[in-house]
């Protein structure tokens, strides 16, 4: 059963009285790219944040690489994981945020080196070497000494991707990575993501970029009102949506 990188079984989440996730079931196979689409408020981002336990799941089960997220099962009892254990799980899951969230007091290079130095306790030489290679890979080898405030949105997001990759994750989560970018900067970030998908990274991408979903995605899940409405291959779902709500949404964004 551990053939799935991510497996969600009837996942529920509510904030106070608002039910944000009302029973999500889905699987992501290793090396697949899953695109999560749907109107705002449909729970896509919340689901993504449950995967690395930034949000706590209220009911159901969520597994990453066969491991239960946030809890340890002993018999039929669930034990909450300690803060350090949660942190250890998160090492293997990279996340890219809509607002980049680069560390403002560090240069691009320091941003990428920070987690390997502190979390994996790597030597400076090793961390620096990999950070420089990763910045090269996202096309920012010459910007390693720049602070986030000196970089464009697209450049910041590419540094953020390099920062996540520095931990050599087995899964990458993208939370609307291009939504805060000027239109002409979207392409450079999507190029990096496309390259990453080609290299075999397992990715879950919350996005409104239907072109990217069609071209790069191995699966597409349409969510609305905290539920999975429709799922399938991106080309099929986008060309031939079955559900009325999917049709209505796609007619607005395509």
């Amino acid at each position, binding site marked *: 059963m551990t053939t799935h990188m991510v497996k969600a079984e009837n996942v529920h989440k509510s904030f106070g009285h608002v039910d944000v996730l009302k029973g999500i079931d889905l699987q992501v196979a290793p090396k697949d790219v899953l695109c999560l689409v749907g109107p705002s408020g449909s729970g896509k981002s919340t689901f993504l944040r449950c995967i*690395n336990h*930034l949000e706590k799941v209220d009911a159901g089960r969520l597994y990453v690489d066969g491991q239960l997220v946030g809890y340890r099962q002993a018999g039929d009892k669930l034990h909450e994981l300690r*803060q*350090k254990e949660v*942190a*250890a*799980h*998160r*090492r293997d*899951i*990279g*996340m890219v*945020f809509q*607002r980049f*969230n*680069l*560390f*403002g*007091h560090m240069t691009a290079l320091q941003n990428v080196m*920070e*987690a390997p130095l*502190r*979390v994996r306790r790597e030597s400076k030489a090793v961390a620096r070497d990999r950070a420089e290679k990763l910045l090269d890979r996202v096309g920012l080898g010459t910007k390693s000494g720049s*602070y986030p*405030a*000196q970089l464009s949105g697209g450049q910041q997001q590419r540094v*953020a991707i390099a*920062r*996540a990759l520095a*931990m050599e994750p087995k899964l990458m989560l993208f939370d609307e990575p291009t939504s805060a970018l000027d239109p002409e900067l979207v392409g450079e970030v999507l190029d990096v993501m496309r390259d990453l998908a080609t290299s075999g990274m397992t990715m879950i991408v919350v996005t409104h970029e239907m072109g990217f979903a069609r071209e790069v995605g191995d699966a597409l899940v349409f969510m609305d009102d905290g539920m999975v409405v429709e799922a399938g291959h991106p080309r099929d779902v986008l060309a031939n949506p079955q559900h009325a709500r999917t049709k209505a949404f796609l007619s607005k964004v395509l």
Partner: protein
Amino acid sequence: MSSDTHPGGAPAGTAERDSEPIKAIPVRHWGQWVSAAVVLALAAALVYSVATNDNLQWSVVGDNITEESVLRGLWVTIRLTVLSMVLGIALGIVVAVMRLSSNKVLGTVSWFYIWLFRGTPVLVQLLLWFNLGLFFPTIGLGSLNADANDLIKPFIAALLALALNEAAYMAEVVRAGVLAVDPGQAEASHALGMTKGQTMRRIVLPQAMRVVIPPTGNETITMLKTTSLVLVVGAGDLLTRTSAIAAREFTTIEMLMVASFWYLVLTSIASYGQYHLERRFARGSAGTLPHSLGQRTLANLRPGRVHGDAR
């Protein structure tokens, strides 16, 4: 960079078509000139009446300004200020982090600490520490015991009172700074697998500094003046020394002038230091840099400019 390149479509010959700079007569602020004259006249009258006052012997002020015991008192004031600020800031950071922690015990303890030390006058705390021996005759653990009156010397009592009181204020300053850091920063750090402690030390606190520095400068300047309260326990600071001389020589006003002179020197130095610290930490961020008092005054003296508009 782009100022020397004309945007496309500019008509040929634009460069030669010199636009004549506007030479307009600026608005005159006659009211300001009149009020400045009035203020100057009043200030001159005040200075004259103090300078020529027969009850104030300026020679006594001059003789005592560098008197040895006054300088020793000045040194005690500086040491007391620096030590209580260092201890206060260190403890304040600890209390602030406790206050923000999800651990309910730590949160409650720090809330109580702030409530207690901010809720009672520092003068009362000073007297309590000084008189600790009255209700805790001995201090110690097990066989390690000491007489409280031997341990709590005036300087120690003063340092304890000022530092512990300052920590309560600094805790609130640091807490405000931490809350001013975008929560996305901590989220990104957690997502990378960093623990809460690492996130606080490496990501949040360094970025809280910019918000924390200006009020800390104010706290330091306040502390310089608050140290004068230790007069009541005779801790040997500047005011203790000048008051002792005043009582001996019947030169109350003269010695208060001496004390005021040195306090003004110290606070001026501290303000200058704060100004440069603020500029340093404001680098790389958008927003205007604060002008020093000198720059503002100069700017205000230039005709036709109002309110330190130095550009």
